């Protein structure tokens, strides 16, 4: 019968029309600023720098090794290591900028960082009126406490903490055993271990 | 009250305008428009006379105009179809260049 398919289709849309009033499975809209979906734990947005303790400057785990700068595909990280008065390189970034207008949230910096110093943030409401200066995040913008890391990625952060503690312990043992051998970073950063789901 | 002659003069004017257009414009479509105007002038005459002098046949004027309108529609259809056909052939609607019966 001509028109049968059309009527079938109209029944379908009618079902959706009425369904949208009582069936939450059909009416999936979230009224964003008022309602928010809880973010997934794995959600990532832009990188931030983790610092331990209370002091933003001191506690930064970043040692300015520039691995992330090198590996970053869009090359949005700019690092200048700190130098002391003699011009000797310090294990601390003097400048650590991320241009998040270029960053593509790929998380490769996180993966390659041997020191677990850079992690992915979940902050996404970053809109700004000035796309040049306000989207270039500096060290102080990027530095966030470990607690914050725990807050947004609890599982991962716990694992990382455990790992770091183990490493520190190992390093202490090595230091104790090998005297004044300089502390060197572990050859391979262990992959993030996440419990099997 | 408007006298009958006023309508007749108006109709004559309209007729004259249509005639002038049909005589002076080069585009076949314009000529057709002029002819439409002339036809309508005639219609106006019919209605005016019908209104002022109903005569024995009460609806003759109206009927005539109705038929005239119908025929004008047919005339327009055929005329425009002819113009389009000629246009396809000569790629022009200029009447001056359509002077041959040969296709």
């Amino acid at each position, binding site marked *: 019968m001509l028109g049968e398919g059309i009527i079938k289709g109209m029944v379908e849309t009618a079902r959706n029309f009425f369904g949208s009033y009582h069936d939450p499975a059909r009416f999936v809209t979230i009224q964003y600023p008022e309602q928010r979906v809880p973010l997934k734990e794995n959600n990532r947005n832009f990188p931030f720098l983790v610092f331990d303790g209370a002091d933003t400057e001191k506690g930064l785990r970043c040692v300015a090794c520039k691995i992330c700068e090198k590996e970053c595909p869009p090359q949005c990280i700019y690092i200048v290591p700190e130098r002391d008065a003699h011009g000797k390189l310090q294990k601390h970034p003097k400048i650590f900028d991320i241009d998040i207008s270029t960053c593509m949230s790929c998380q490769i910096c996180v993966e390659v960082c041997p020191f677990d110093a850079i992690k992915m943030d979940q902050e996404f409401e970053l809109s700004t009126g000035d796309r040049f200066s306000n989207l270039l995040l500096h060290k102080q913008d990027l530095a966030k406490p470990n607690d914050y890391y725990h807050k947004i990625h609890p599982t991962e952060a716990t694992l990382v903490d455990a790992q770091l503690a183990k490493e520190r312990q190992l390093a202490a043992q090595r230091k104790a055993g090998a005297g004044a051998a300089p502390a060197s970073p572990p050859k391979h950063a262990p992959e993030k271990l996440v419990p099997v789901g | 009250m408007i006298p009958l002659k006023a309508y007749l003069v108006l109709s004559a004017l309209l007729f*004259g305008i249509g005639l002038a257009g049909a005589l*002076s414009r080069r585009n076949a479509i314009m000529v057709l428009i002029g002819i439409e105007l002339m036809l309508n002038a005639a219609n106006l005459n019919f209605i005016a006379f019908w209104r002022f002098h109903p005569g024995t046949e009460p609806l003759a004027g109206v009927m005539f105009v109705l038929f005239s309108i119908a025929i004008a529609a047919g005339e327009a259809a055929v005329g425009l179809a002819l113009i389009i056909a000629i246009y396809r052939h000569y790629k022009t609607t200029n009447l001056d260049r359509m002077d041959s019966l040969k296709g």
Partner: protein
Amino acid sequence: MQAAFFIIAALIVIGGLAAMLVRKLVHAVLWLMVTLASLAALFLLLGAQFVGFAQILVYVGAVAILIVFAILLTRNSEWAKAGRLASPSWLVGVGIAGLATGCLIASILASSIPPGVPVPPAASVADIGQKLMTEYVLPLEAVGLLLTAAMIGAVIIAMPEDKRG
């Protein structure tokens, strides 16, 4: 009533003049529509309701669209240079038309048509329908046949020539 007549008459004349004088074909059609719509208004004013509506329906709804389509289908010619308006042939045409109109108007004014009383003749739709189906049934059929023939003819004429079978 008088004012209405003069306004409408002015519109008719202006529309007609403009339709014949403007350069662009589409404008001419639009002016033609002004004239024809005013004419329809005049018919209404004269009490010929049915004819007035039929005038609008046929002219504005059909003839205008037909002309417009013809203009679109003969697109090239629209932009062709119109040439000087006041060419000799134009003058001749206008002269002849003026002569004819002058003769007509003069004869109308000179004639002794009785002024006539505008009796409101009853032209209800029902009357017209009745008449069409009885007294005028033969012309009606003839017009129907004519329109059919015209339609078929128009289609055949306008059909592209290369349609073989």
